[in-house]
């Protein structure tokens, strides 16, 4: 049956049709008709954030922890521009979002109207696709396609800009499925000859390594299971990027830990010395490769990726396979059959010698809590609860990646590509919405947490029991570390002056605040946090000048890792300084 409905109404009905449970948003003039359509709507829960960046990050946290697309609703102009950081973050980390932005009425577009911004123009480079809808009759089709584009192929954010008059004007609506042109069909299956070649290369390898990334997580739980099968069949040791942590269980004997700039010695040495790298859903990011001309010099490389443009972007590979990680791994496993890998005893013995470096070890400190120890204790005391961990960006993020361990996908939510400080708290809020019974902890730094600290109010309002565990060293620790290592300890603007009293801040928002000032209080403080039913901030005072090691300095090769205790020069040549 067909009837006339307003654009706002069509939008809400379309979201419900897509199975949307939560919308993260903030109202404003140009989305008032949509907010009116949401009024009293019980099929969708709207989570009112405190800043639009928080809406986008919360939607990301929801998406990463549930595998479902996150939905954002913000107004025109500043609403949209505030959301851009979160949209760019989702774009870099391939997170499916559908972002609805209000726009000034069609007749005023381009006139510098109040709260007007060229949202489609501004978001062009940080969305997978975007739309300006000028007629409510187009809305149902656009929304349907937006969800398909956001969630299939390489996932990413899709933005729909809807002028206010289009929200109010009416168009025909009916309950039948949307009829639209199918124009997006990413390739998901590897070609048979590519699969056969991959199998032959893996079967011939004497020193293979599986290098996995966020693509395995994005591909869904089936990919995680298939990765374990592939590892069992081939015997290859496994390392992962920051984004891929959790795809392979951290207690497995062939797990090497994370690779890259702050990865383990064994992971980076194994990458350097391997004769075959099988890259599954990772993209040879600069944090991973270190100096490109010294990256894995003697290896053949297979690259499985759903995005053609990721292939040969920085590192040339011998065998690209374009397709979905799960699909391609399944094809490889089918083609592998009952084959036996080469004898990898010698290779694994070499790996074990690298493990003996114990590259994640750190010196004990009698006076102050070592931040690494705080993470280790947090892990030990929470691991039985299978928590969801989010982070901000900086030293604490790397320490969490090194010392917290993951056993399944969708438990580790961190801003990898864009490196967005302020990601962790809103992401934790989104994750808690999607996983109401899970323990959700934002591991934060004293500087990062202040970037979206207003979202504490959101958690209070919706009674979300998120925990913030701040490693408080009174510095922008990673900036301070780089300044120490490359700028002769000239600490320009990296001191966190005028920090708030986090415990009292927690109380002001109706949260619980806990301060941990010495190692003797560490376990009890963490336990108190876990046991408290509502939201908690833990202000964990840690050693102020601890550095994050191991570290591959900018412009260095995997074999030139710095470990704790290595003599570190206080400067660097200009070419190295110029690298990111």
């Amino acid at each position: 049956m067909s009837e006339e409905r307003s654009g706002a109404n069509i939008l809400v009905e379309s979201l419900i049709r897509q199975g949307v449970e939560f919308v993260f948003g903030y109202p404003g003039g140009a989305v008032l008709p949509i907010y009116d359509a949401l009024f009293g709507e019980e099929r969708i829960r709207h989570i009112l954030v405190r800043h639009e960046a928080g809406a986008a990050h919360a939607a990301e946290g929801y998406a990463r922890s549930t595998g479902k697309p996150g939905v954002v609703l913000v107004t025109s102009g500043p609403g949209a521009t505030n959301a851009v950081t979160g949209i760019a973050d989702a774009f870099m980390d391939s997170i499916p979002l559908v972002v609805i932005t209000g726009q000034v009425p069609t007749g005023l577009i381009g006139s510098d109207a109040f709260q007007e911004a060229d949202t489609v123009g501004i978001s062009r480079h940080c969305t997978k696709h975007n739309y300006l809808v000028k007629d409510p009759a187009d809305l149902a089709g656009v929304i349907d396609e937006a969800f398909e584009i956001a969630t299939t192929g390489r996932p990413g954010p899709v933005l729909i800009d809807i002028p206010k008059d289009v929200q109010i004007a009416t168009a025909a609506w009916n309950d039948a499925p949307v009829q639209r042109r199918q124009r997006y069909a990413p390739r998901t299956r590897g070609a048979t000859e590519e699969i056969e070649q991959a199998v032959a290369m893996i079967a011939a390898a004497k020193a293979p390594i599986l290098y996995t990334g966020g693509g395995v997580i994005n591909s869904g739980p089936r990919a995680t299971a298939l990765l374990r099968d592939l590892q069992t069949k081939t015997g290859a040791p496994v390392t992962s990027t920051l984004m891929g942590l959790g795809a392979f269980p951290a207690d497995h004997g062939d797990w090497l830990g994370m690779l890259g700039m702050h990865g383990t010695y064994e992971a980076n040495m194994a990458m350097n010395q391997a004769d075959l790298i099988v890259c599954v859903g990772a993209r040879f990011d600069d944090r991973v490769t270190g100096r490109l001309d010294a990256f894995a010099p003697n290896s053949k490389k297979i690259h499985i990726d759903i995005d053609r443009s990721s292939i040969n972007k920085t590192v040339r590979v011998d065998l690209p396979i374009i397709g979905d990680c799960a699909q391609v791994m399944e094809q490889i496993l089918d083609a592998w059959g009952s084959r036996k890998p080469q004898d990898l005893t010698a290779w694994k013995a070499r790996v074990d010698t690298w493990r003996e470096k114990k590259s994640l070890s750190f010196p004990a400190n009698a006076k102050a809590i070592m931040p690494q120890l705080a993470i280790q204790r947090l892990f030990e005391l929470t691991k039985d609860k299978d928590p969801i961990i989010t982070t901000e960006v900086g030293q604490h993020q790397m320490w969490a990646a090194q010392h917290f361990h993951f056993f399944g996908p969708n438990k580790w939510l961190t801003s990898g590509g864009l490196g967005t400080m302020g990601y962790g708290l809103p992401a934790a809020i989104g994750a808690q919405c999607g996983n109401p019974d899970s323990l959700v902890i934002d591991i934060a730094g004293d500087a990062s947490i202040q970037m979206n600290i207003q979202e504490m109010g959101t958690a209070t309002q919706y009674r979300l029991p998120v925990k913030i565990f701040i490693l408080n060293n009174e510095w922008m620790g990673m900036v301070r570390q780089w300044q120490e290592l490359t700028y002769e300890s000239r600490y320009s603007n990296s001191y966190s002056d005028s920090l708030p009293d986090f415990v009292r801040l927690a109380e002001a928002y109706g949260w619980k605040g806990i301060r941990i000032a010495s190692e003797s209080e560490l376990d009890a403080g963490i336990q108190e946090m876990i046991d408290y039913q509502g939201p908690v901030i833990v202000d964990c005072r840690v050693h102020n000048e601890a550095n994050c090691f191991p570290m591959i300095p900018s412009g260095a090769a995997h074999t030139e890792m710095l470990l704790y205790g290595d003599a570190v020069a206080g400067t660097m040549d200009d070419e190295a300084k110029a690298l990111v």
Partner: protein
Amino acid sequence: MMHIKHEAEERHVLTVTVDNEAGILAKIAGLFTARGYNIDSLTVADITENHAVSRITIVTHGPPSQIDQIHAQLERLVPVHKVVDLTEVGPFVQRELALVKVSGTGEKRVEALRVADVFRAKTVDTTTSSFVFELTGAPDKIDSFVAIMRELGLVEVGRTGVVGMIRGAEEA
């Protein structure tokens, strides 16, 4: 109940003279998309000996007020030297080039060649069962040629988009 009213739209041909630098084309295209209007055709080529200056011809359609606004916005871009709305300024010539591939045998093939001759198209490629014709002219001439060829075995069409120039002795 409210429905969206669409303003009457006009076709306009604009020429834009710009510094030949990276990003300028994206900025210009952005002025149109930011207002939700499409560019119908766009041609760009550098026109000075040192390759420093390009002339862009844009065909667009939209409400006259929007086109006037886009004109003004174009002039505001730093690398833009001059914008002329040929449709406003007065009589102008416009030409585009098309390559039209037709395949067929027998009477249709003969007819295609005959029509091509009428339109003064050049045959630039041929096999025993196909032609590629090159045709220049105003857009409506090319439209009619393509329409006829559609009945005679049209395979594909490529068009350059319009370049335009004001009539008479003066520079626009």
